[in-house]
C-alpha cells in the first residue's frame, strides 16, 4: 500500500519534471522556428545558438517582482494561475508514453483528459474577472467563448476513433492501431481534431484570447512574475498534451519499427508540435466573428458528417 503510493508519487514527480523540461525546450523551439520562418536567427547569445536562453529567461521570470494590483479580487487572482497550471498537468496522470511509461492507466482515459482540460476554461475566466481590467475581462470572455465552442468539434472528431477502437482506454486505442494508424481511415477526423485542438490551446491563428495587438495579451494582462510564467508554461503544456493525444489517437502512439516505443512516441509528438508552430507562423489571426462562424458553420457540420459516416461504415462493415 505505502510502497505502491510511493511509486505512484515518484512516477508523478518524474512526469512533472519531464514535462517541465519539455516545455522549456518547446519555448526555445518556438522562438527558433518563428525566427527562421521570418528569416531571422532568434536567440543566439546565451549558449550555443541560444541553447541556454530559456534557462536564463526562466530564472529572470521567477525572480521578477510579483505585482498584485490594488483593486483585484485577491483570492481569485491568486488561485487562477495555479488552477491553470495544475489542470494542464492533470492530463498526464493517464497519458501513456509507452505501454509501460504511464502513471495510471485509466479505463476512461480519453474522457478524463477531455474533462480535466475543461478546467482550464475556468482558470482563464477567473483570471479575466479577478484582474478587474476591461481588456482582461474581454480576453477572458473571448477565450471562454472560443474554448467552449471548439470543444464540440473536438469531441465529435475524437468519437469515431473511440468507436473503431471500442474503448476509451488510451492504451487499448493505440493497440487497436497495430495494423494501420487511424489517420489513414480518419484523415478528416485528424484534420478536424488538430484544428479544434489548436483553438482549444489558444494557438494562432486562433489566439484571439491573447491577441497582443488588440487586447494587450488578454486575460493575463495584469499578471507578472511567477504567476504570469504559470499561465505561459500551462499554455505550452497544453500544446504538448494535444499533440500527444493526437499521436495516440491518430498516429498509432508508440508503435513503429526498430526504435524503442518512447522514442517513436516523442518523434510523432514533436512532428505535430512542429506542424502547429508552422501553422502559427504562417497564417494570420482570425477575427472573433470569423472564428466563431468557422467553428459553427464549417467545423461542426464536417465533424458531424464524419461521425455519421464512420458510424454507418462501422455498422455496415
Amino acid at each position: 500500500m505505502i510502497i505502491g503510493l510511493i511509486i505512484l508519487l515518484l512516477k508523478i514527480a518524474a512526469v512533472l519534471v519531464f514535462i517541465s523540461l519539455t516545455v522549456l525546450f518547446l519555448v526555445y523551439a518556438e522562438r527558433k522556428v518563428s525566427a527562421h520562418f521570418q528569416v531571422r536567427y532568434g536567440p543566439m547569445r546565451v549558449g550555443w545558438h541560444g541553447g541556454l536562453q530559456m534557462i536564463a529567461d526562466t530564472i529572470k521570470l521567477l525572480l521578477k517582482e510579483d505585482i498584485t494590483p490594488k483593486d483585484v479580487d485577491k483570492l481569485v487572482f491568486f488561485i487562477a494561475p495555479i488552477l491553470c497550471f495544475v489542470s494542464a498537468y492533470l492530463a498526464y496522470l493517464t497519458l501513456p508514453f509507452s505501454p509501460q511509461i504511464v502513471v495510471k492507466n485509466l479505463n476512461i482515459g480519453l474522457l478524463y483528459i477531455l474533462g480535466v482540460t475543461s478546467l482550464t476554461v475556468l482558470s482563464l475566466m477567473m483570471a479575466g474577472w479577478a484582474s478587474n481590467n476591461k481588456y482582461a475581462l474581454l480576453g477572458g470572455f473571448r477565450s471562454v467563448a472560443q474554448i467552449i465552442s471548439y470543444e464540440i468539434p473536438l469531441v465529435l472528431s475524437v468519437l469515431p476513433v473511440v468507436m473503431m477502437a471500442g474503448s476509451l482506454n488510451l492504451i487499448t486505442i493505440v493497440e487497436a492501431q497495430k495494423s494501420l494508424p487511424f489517420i489513414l481511415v480518419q484523415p478528416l477526423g485528424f484534420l478536424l481534431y488538430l484544428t479544434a485542438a489548436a483553438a482549444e490551446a489558444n494557438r494562432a491563428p486562433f489566439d484571439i484570447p491573447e491577441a497582443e495587438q488588440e487586447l494587450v495579451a488578454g486575460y493575463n494582462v495584469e499578471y507578472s512574475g511567477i504567476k504570469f510564467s504559470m499561465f505561459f508554461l500551462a499554455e505550452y503544456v497544453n500544446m504538448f498534451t494535444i499533440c500527444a493525444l493526437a499521436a495516440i489517437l491518430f498516429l498509432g502512439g508508440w508503435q513503429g519499427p526498430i526504435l524503442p516505443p518512447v522514442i517513436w512516441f516523442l518523434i510523432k509528438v514533436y512532428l505535430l508540435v512542429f506542424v502547429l508552430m508552422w501553422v502559427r507562423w504562417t497564417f494570420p489571426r482570425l477575427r472573433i466573428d470569423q472564428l466563431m462562424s468557422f467553428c459553427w458553420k464549417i467545423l461542426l457540420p464536417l465533424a458531424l458528417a464524419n461521425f455519421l459516416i464512420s458510424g454507418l461504415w462501422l455498422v455496415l462493415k
Partner: protein
Amino acid sequence: MIFYFLAVTLILSAILVVTLKNIFHCALFLIVAILAIAGLYFHLQAPFLGVVQLIIYIGAIMVLILFAIMLTSRISDRLLQTASRQSIPALLAVIVFILLALKSLDKTPLPAHIGKNFDPILDLGRALMTAYVLPFEVVSLLLLVALVGAIALARKD
C-alpha cells in the same frame, strides 16, 4: 478516509455557496462542491459519472453561470453583493425537513450491499442503448429544445 475528506469538503463548500455575499465566490465554491461530488462518484465506482460531472457541470454549466454573473454584475458593484432574506424561518424549515427525512430513513430498511460487480462503462452504454433508448432520445430532444429556446430568448431583436 477519502470519503470523509470529500464529504467535509462538500458540506463546507455547499454552505459557503448559499451564505457568501460575493456571488462570484459562491460560484467558485459551487465548483469545489461539484469537484467533491465527482470524487464521490469515483469512490462509488462510477468513474464515467465522475468524468461526465467534470465535463458537463464544470465545463458547461458552471462556465455558463460564471458567464451570466460576469454579464450581470461588475466586480465593485452593489449587485455582486447578494443579500439573503428570511434566513431564520428558512433555516428552521430546512432543519425540520432534514429531521423528518432522517426519521423516515431510520424507519426504512435499507437493502444490503450486493457484491455483484459490473463494468460501469460497458453496462452503462448497453443500458442506454437498450432498456433506456426511448428516454435517451427524449433527453436529446429536450437538449435540442433547450438550445433553440436559449437562442430565441437571448437573441437581441
